[in-house]
């Protein structure tokens, strides 16, 4: 009985220290932001249904093809990634997947006013304009026109993308993932000679120089981001980077909830690959230890019965 009371005292003070040092102190360091809602409430609803066929025409006539390829619709990219980065700072993405992974309302608003939707408008001005211009339309109601474009993009998007493909489309243009050999110019290929490797590294390095100049800071490698931030924080951050890093150059890219989950799953597969093994092996070890402790108790009781 006395020993049980001692144990309670021990547990009480240990938990007190734990509470004070972890949840309590951390709550005083950062104020917990509201969870992600994927609603993009600051953007206006645009309720036209949109005509895909019309959208394709508008896409080509409004000049979008001048920068963006849409492989799934047979429209190739007009420039290589490296050349685009040299001109714009970053390569304009291929839009084959855009209709699937980005929120519809977001996309419409984005086309109308890109940096406003991205939430990084403050970084750009007349002298340093955002590379993608605001939508000047092809003569009719702009809201209708962007709805058509978005409908077109949705019609040519795949039905489903896996975690890595979602990541590549949404984040891969700016972020490297060293542990998965991902660069903004694609997966690192297998090299036959040292010269080949150096040539590729040089291309990536030049691209990154343009990117750093454009963004103001180098987008960090994401290999361990799942462990330095955790799922919940990443979700909040991707939904609105300004919430956690005010003034950041990282755009709010407009991912849907589903696509965000996929991106985070991918990051977890890269930064915490052994999670499943950890969560199955440890219970087994604990199970063994319970048996061990049981036997230890039985042996101890037998011995101590002789001395009490």
């Amino acid at each position, binding site marked *: 009985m006395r020993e049980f009371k001692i144990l309670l005292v021990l547990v009480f003070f240990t938990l007190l220290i734990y509470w004070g*040092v972890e949840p309590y*102190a951390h709550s005083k*360091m950062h104020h917990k932001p509201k969870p992600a809602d994927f609603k993009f409430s600051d953007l206006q609803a645009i309720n036209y249904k949109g005509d895909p066929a019309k959208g394709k025409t508008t896409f080509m006539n409004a000049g979008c093809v001048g920068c963006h390829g849409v492989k799934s619709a047979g429209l190739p990219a007009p420039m290589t990634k490296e050349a685009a980065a040299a001109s714009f700072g970053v390569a304009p993405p291929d839009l084959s997947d855009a209709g699937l992974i980005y929120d519809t309302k977001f996309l419409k608003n984005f086309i109308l006013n890109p940096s406003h939707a991205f939430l990084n408008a403050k970084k750009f001005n007349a002298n340093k304009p955002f590379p993608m211009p605001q939508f000047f339309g092809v003569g009719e109601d702009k809201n209708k026109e962007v709805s058509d474009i978005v409908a077109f993009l949705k019609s040519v998007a795949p039905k489903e993308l896996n975690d890595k493909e979602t990541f590549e489309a949404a984040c891969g243009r700016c972020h490297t993932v*060293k542990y998965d050999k991902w660069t903004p110019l694609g997966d690192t290929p297998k090299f036959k000679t040292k010269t080949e490797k150096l040539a590729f590294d040089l291309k990536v390095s030049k691209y990154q120089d343009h990117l750093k100049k454009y963004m103001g800071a180098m987008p960090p490698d994401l290999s361990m981001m799942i462990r330095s931030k955790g799922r919940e924080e990443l979700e909040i951050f991707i939904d609105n980077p300004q919430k956690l890093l005010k003034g950041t150059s990282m755009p709010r890219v407009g991912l849907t909830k589903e696509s965000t989950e996929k991106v985070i799953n991918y990051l977890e597969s890269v930064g915490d690959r*052994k999670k499943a093994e950890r969560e199955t092996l440890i219970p087994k070890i604990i199970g063994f230890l319970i048996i061990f402790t049981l036997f230890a108790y039985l042996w*101890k009781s037998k011995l101590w019965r002789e001395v009490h």
Partner: protein
Amino acid sequence: MAEIRKAESLYDWFDQRLAIGKLNKVLATEYWVPKNINFLWAMGVILMTTFGMLFISGLFLLMYYKPDTHMAFDSVNYTIMQEVAYGWLWRHMHAVAASVVFLVIYIHMFVAIYYGSYKRGREMIWISGMLLFMLFSAAGFSGYMLPWGQMSYWAAQVITNIFGAIPFIGPDLVVWIRGNYFVSDPTLTRFFMLHVLLLPLVIMATIGLHFYSLRIPHVNNQEGEEIDFDEEAKKYKEGKKKESKVIPFWPVFMSKDLFVVGVFLIFYFYLVGFHYEFAMDPINFVPANYMKTPTHIYPEWYFLWSYEILRGFFFPIAGLKPFTLGLIGFAIANGVFLILPWLDRSPVVAPAHKRGAFKIWFWLMLIDMIGLTIFGKVPPNHVYFVGGNDITPWFGFTFTIGFFILLFIALPLITRSERKRAGGAK
């Protein structure tokens, strides 16, 4: 020359050459420990278990870790954590054990303070124990640098910077410690040397000293009773096990210890698998960047109490700047427990609950150290307001002053009057 005869068994062969029979009696089966103890007496064995886990998991980490600023982070977070079979297990075990070992050290320390196990012949046990605390602190600090994350780097930067405050030689000393003007590759590799070789060797030697120093004064007991170990051992060997006040280290004392170790390991492995962020801070999963200080840097929880004393002073006292006061306080705080046997002026060895004012002192001391620990982590400004005034720094300051008053004024006074009531020094 010892008389060697034909061995009757393998045991006999070794016994004739190494006296393993006698050794076994001296170290185990006839090493007498009081019977009147509780599970808190198992903390020592738990520490040995934890140190053992640190050592063994450390061996496997050492096989793949690269002590180079360009390779360290990836050798840990890619190679060990994701490629090496069970690498993640060794790393999680090592990190959690490094944190939990301090919880057990503090429990072990406070149990000794509670029961008065630091005086009347046991001073060397206490001192070697405090040396072990300091050595483990150095091992923890040097080990934390190795993964080379943001916390690794900035903890190293801040703590090596402190030496710059030493008069005359300070700034040169900092450069000498770092091997460069700033924390960089030479700093990493020399702390690797300390963590992997020098400190473990010194720790093992000091553990040897700690164990040896226990023998003559003997392990204490719950009432602080002075036992005639020879007499009680005689009773036990005669078969009067229930009457004897002692038990042999092996198998009786160890059997209970092994049970406590079992319970401890269940709790420990739960942390290793499911609750390890307190030991593996997320900020340290960002690679070290010497041009960017993270928004919040803080030491590991077990250093927080002395860190709070370092930054607890926020206005000048007696003409000394708060920074200087903090440094002096920090230096004293990290050494003061060594002289505890002399700050306690009373010869009474008894549990705190039987020592009147000392009981109150004990719980106040515990609360003060917990207070310092928690406020060592809470930001030092702009957290608590009364009216429009920021009263935040007053919390840390109060606990800091409390610490020095409790140790340098309250304890000597309380124990001096206890000595008078007990009839003077024995």
